[in-house]
């Protein structure tokens, strides 16, 4: 998956989890740019990401979800593990 495709899919995940209706996501965004993103909704996000992308997120990686750049690379690297 390319970065743009991931960002696209993240947008729909975010609108489901955070009721996010803002513009397209960019790599420089963080959790501070999205109002409803707190530690509770972060949990929901993690589960949704696991469902949506078919990946498994480690506990140690949960805080790195709060950075779009890190989140995208995480999804990409996990995807590469699951595709053969």
């Amino acid at each position, binding site marked *: 998956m390319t970065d743009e495709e991931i960002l696209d899919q993240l947008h729909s995940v975010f609108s*489901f989890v955070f009721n996010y209706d803002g513009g397209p996501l960019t790599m420089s965004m963080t959790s*501070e740019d999205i109002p409803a993103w707190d*530690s*509770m*909704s972060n949990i929901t996000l*993690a589960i949704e990401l696991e469902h949506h992308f078919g990946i498994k997120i*480690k*506990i140690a990686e949960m805080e790195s979800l709060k950075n779009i750049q890190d989140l995208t690379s995480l999804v990409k690297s996990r995807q590469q593990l699951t595709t053969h």
Partner: protein
Amino acid sequence: MLFNSYGFIFGFLPLSLVGFYSLGRLGRKPAASWLVFSSFVFYGLWNPRYTFLLALSIGFNYLISLMIHANRQHHFLQRTYLTLGIFVDIGVLIYYKYLVDIIGFTYGLSVYDSPTPSITIPLGISFFTFTQIGYLVDVQQGVVADKSPLNYVLFVTFFPHLIAGPILHNREIMPQFSEKRTYRFSIENLTVGSVIFIIGLAKKCLLADPLSAQVSTGFAPSASLTLSAAWLLMFTYAIQIYFDFSGYTDMAIGIARMFNVRFPMNFNSPYKATSIIDFWQRWHMTLTRLLTLYLFNPLAISIARSHAARKLPISRSAQTSTNAFFMMTAFPLLITMSVAGIWHGAGIKFLIFGLLHGFYLTVNHGWRIFRSPRASKLGPLHRLSNWLLTISSILVALVFFRAPTMNSALATVSAMAGVHGLGNVVFRNLLLHGVSSIQLIFTQHGPAAATSGLKAIENAMQYFLTAFLWFIVLIMPNTQQIMHKYEPALGRINPCALQRMTWKPTIASAAALGAISAFAIMAVAGTTPFVYFQF
């Protein structure tokens, strides 16, 4: 040894710096070893015997981490070692910190007044225990890159954070100890670190310490508080503990910077928060981070995963069912904040402090989950009322943090509710009372007038001083914002309204720094040990 003491500022610190940079010329390992040695000396200057405990704790945890890493193919063995490590660490912590209280509790001694402990609590045990548990979990998760023993020991014992934080994460610190440039003297880092240190020293000695006597009087058993006196007391204490703790943290950050090491931010103008959730993102940020990473996240996500596995809906709207809300939101929050509470101290009062904040957070998160999302931004009046609600909740919980006994805490809280009378609620009346007392000085004769007038002025000054300090806290930039051009700490520094108040090495700022440091160094002599010292 305290940072705010002459022995540290003019003795230990310069010696440690000189040794570090001299040995740095010989290489990384000599300088790093000198730092480890200095840190043990720093710890031992308080109580030499407990350096053995510190060394044992570090040795034990490092060994466990090696075993965890060695068994990364065998998940069961890994988890066993991890559990063993956490068990022993928490056990030691309970033994030194909580055992006396637990025994007292079970023997039916007064739960309200903690008995005088017969065990001296090793300095900083809460800090270095939790730091190491975090490391063990990270090793088990496979996210620790650097496992060298010297870096690990230095990471745990590095004296700026050893006793009172900030609580460091291995990923942000250990790499810095591997870099060559950490061991090369930089006059910029020395200067920037000294400025941050002096700001911290001034906050602690000039702003926080003078308030402690006033606060102690307010919590004395004989104090009978009215509503206004109780609220004034808590507003004053909130300021005292903020400047005390953030000042000490600034000193830690500044000292680390003198050694070319960057520490994470620990405070971000917490009293500007307009919600409790926001508050905990700004107060003792490294503790929030630690508890979120290693307690809240694992707990909440395992509950959420089990809900999802049982095909129970977990989306935002689905969380509004009572059962889902309790299990997924309230329960993890209450557990995490209870731990946060008793981390600060043994005793029912600290547990209540934690539970109160757990309750507040639950309400706050619940509010976000249950109400429909707001399209428009909040108006200023709305934000003001949010702020008032947030601050009031914080002050009420803070009573349980500070009050010497449970009875005192309950008395203060009931005074805040107006149970014991209103007192000088109307500020205008207070002002007039002060003015009329001053008038008496000039008209009345005799020694009596002198004492009562001065007292009235002192009472009025308390209100003014507290109001002034709150003004500073709400309007002025915090230390990181002042220093933001020089990357004072790890973490994002959001811009402040007063953008022009930033530090630059100019003559004007040199004059200000010199004057402030003169005052701060003079104030060191009247020093009180800082509040978080007992943790």
